[in-house]
């Protein structure tokens, strides 16, 4: 069919035939191009999603046999059970880490805007941790924090006696900080590259012009760099809330969620796959989804009302794009 259409002479009659054939072709394209992604979306996202909602009202295990209806009991348990509730508190550490990470990323991206010799090397060094797989990062830091190993040896080198060094992974006062720090280590460089990309999308002549006009570094940052990336920074801050709730790999590999380091996902994973409390795990997932949806609504409202001063059309378009990409990549992670 398509060959015929292509070969049709461009007379008036040919044009109408062309249009008619086009209608059929249009349907064919729509169906053919969408069938695979839509099937995948249904089978691996929406069917599991509705199943998850259904399971959350049942007391059930793996293996297929139907569980018993328990109404809202699973949801009540999510908030009553101490390990679930504690895991929400643990995510506060990761949120704090995310804020520090964004601040550092912003700082270093700004430094790179002011010409740095050998910037390729330094950028590469800071970015590279992002490319290392989560399990490897886990091992690296298990080794790094282990008693008497890397971090302790370093501190001893600087004259700190071993007795004064805490147990980085066992001491419940600090072990979540140690773990959140691995996240900062891993993602700071990637954040920096994102910010740097946004900063560089501003006409770089502006920086030179400003410095010729005698603007100091702080003024350059305050009046040229910051406005260009304000939206992306705020967006990342909001995203870090749902990101912190989804923290999984550091505690999973390094401490296996023991000694009070279980994040929401680690606890959920344990309940589902080890304790076989599938219903409760599903309820936890729904609660998490509700929190994420709330954050997204808040984020949209924020951008609608706070940044809507009519001067930032370009940066808002960029943010909309970034939002989609970030959500998508979060989903992929």
């Amino acid at each position, binding site marked *: 069919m*398509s060959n015929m*259409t*292509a070969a*049709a002479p*461009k007379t008036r009659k040919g044009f109408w035939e062309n249009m008619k054939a086009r209608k059929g*072709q249009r349907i064919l*394209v*729509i169906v053919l*191009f*969408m069938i695979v*992604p839509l099937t*995948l*979306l249904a*089978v691996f*996202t*929406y069917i*599991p999603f509705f199943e*998850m909602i259904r*399971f959350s009202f049942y007391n059930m295990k*793996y293996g*297929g046999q139907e569980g018993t209806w328990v109404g809202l009991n699973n949801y009540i348990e999510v908030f009553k059970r101490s390990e679930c509730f504690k895991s929400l508190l643990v995510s506060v550490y990761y949120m704090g880490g995310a804020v520090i990470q964004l601040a550092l990323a912003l700082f270093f991206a700004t430094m790179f805007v002011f010409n*740095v010799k050998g910037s390729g090397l*330094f950028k590469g060094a800071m970015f*590279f*941790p992002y*490319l*290392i797989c*989560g*399990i*490897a990062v886990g*091992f*690296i830091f298990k*080794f790094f924090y282990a008693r008497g190993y*890397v971090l302790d*040896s*370093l501190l001893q080198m600087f004259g700190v006696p071993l007795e004064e060094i805490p147990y980085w992974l066992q001491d419940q006062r600090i072990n979540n900080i140690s773990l959140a720090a691995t996240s900062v280590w891993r993602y700071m460089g990637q954040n920096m*590259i*994102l910010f*740097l*990309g946004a900063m560089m*999308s501003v006409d770089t002549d502006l920086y030179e012009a400003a410095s010729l006009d005698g603007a*100091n*570094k702080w003024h350059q940052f305050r009046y040229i760099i910051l406005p260009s990336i304000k939206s992306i920074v705020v967006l990342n801050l909001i995203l870090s809330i*749902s990101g912190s709730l*989804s923290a*999984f790999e550091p505690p999973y590999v390094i401490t296996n969620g023991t000694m009070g380091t279980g994040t929401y996902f680690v606890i*959920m994973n344990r309940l*589902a796959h080890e304790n076989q409390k599938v219903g409760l795990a599903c309820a936890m*997932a729904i609660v*998490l*989804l509700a929190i*994420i*949806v709330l954050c997204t609504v808040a984020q949209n409202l924020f951008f609608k009302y706070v940044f809507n001063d009519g001067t930032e059309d370009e940066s808002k378009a960029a943010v909309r794009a970034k939002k*989609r*990409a*970030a*959500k*998508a990549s979060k*989903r*992929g992670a």
Partner: protein
Amino acid sequence: MTIMKMKPTTFLFTVFKYLSIILASIVALLPICVCVLTAFKTTEEYNATSVLDLPASFLYFENFSVALKQANMFRGFLNTGIVLVVVLIVSIFTGSMLAYVLNRFKFKGSGIIHSLFMFASLIPGIATQVTVYQIMYRLHLINHLYGYMIVLMGTDIISIYIFLQFFENLPVSLDESAIMDGCTYFGVFFKILFPLLKPAIVTSLVLKGVGVYNEYYMSNLYLQDKNLKTISTALYTFTGPFGNQYNYICAGVLITIIPIFILFLIFQEQVYSGMAAGAVKG
């Protein structure tokens, strides 16, 4: 500008700038460098020396060969490689084709489909695996490499977003003039638009490539067979047998890092621009 001509504040700022950047680079690289040192130590040497000491020789490769054998890492590389190639190629085509239809054709339900994909991105990936597992089980996709590939294609929406965003910036006049010339919709997509998608393809290759290479959770759930380990799950098997023998573990860690390090050195610019495009242009 030479140092002599600098104003004192500028000079101080420059010192501060380089000091902070160098410090950050050291912090970023130090944990990896210690792994490099440790990976070259014999077990006796490892037990006797401080972790910060240099190894006696950088030509001691025993740990690497033990690590490769013990965790069957060649197999892991092979599996991860196959998965990467297939998943990346397929998702570039499915993602760009879907984005083409959603962006260029308005039909009944196109808005709903668009929203369905949007909402799907909010559902946390690991959370739904509890129920996805049962679907995988019913479809007999567990313990098959293709099953894992299918679930990776099905649960990752990132390429679709990247392409959707990119299509918004491709003028429709391109399509229209091609159609006037008698081109079919298929021709418009494959001959005219697809070659223009190159930047979006690079972005999605980088973001998805890193994601797939690093993926652990699903490969752990769906590929439990010993011969189906990916590089992440192969590495994870080090938890048991080696205990605190970090000279072997570090060798294993380095084995997984080296390929990505080489790729990064070669494609550094593409990786950065892919990342940045993922943020700014989508």
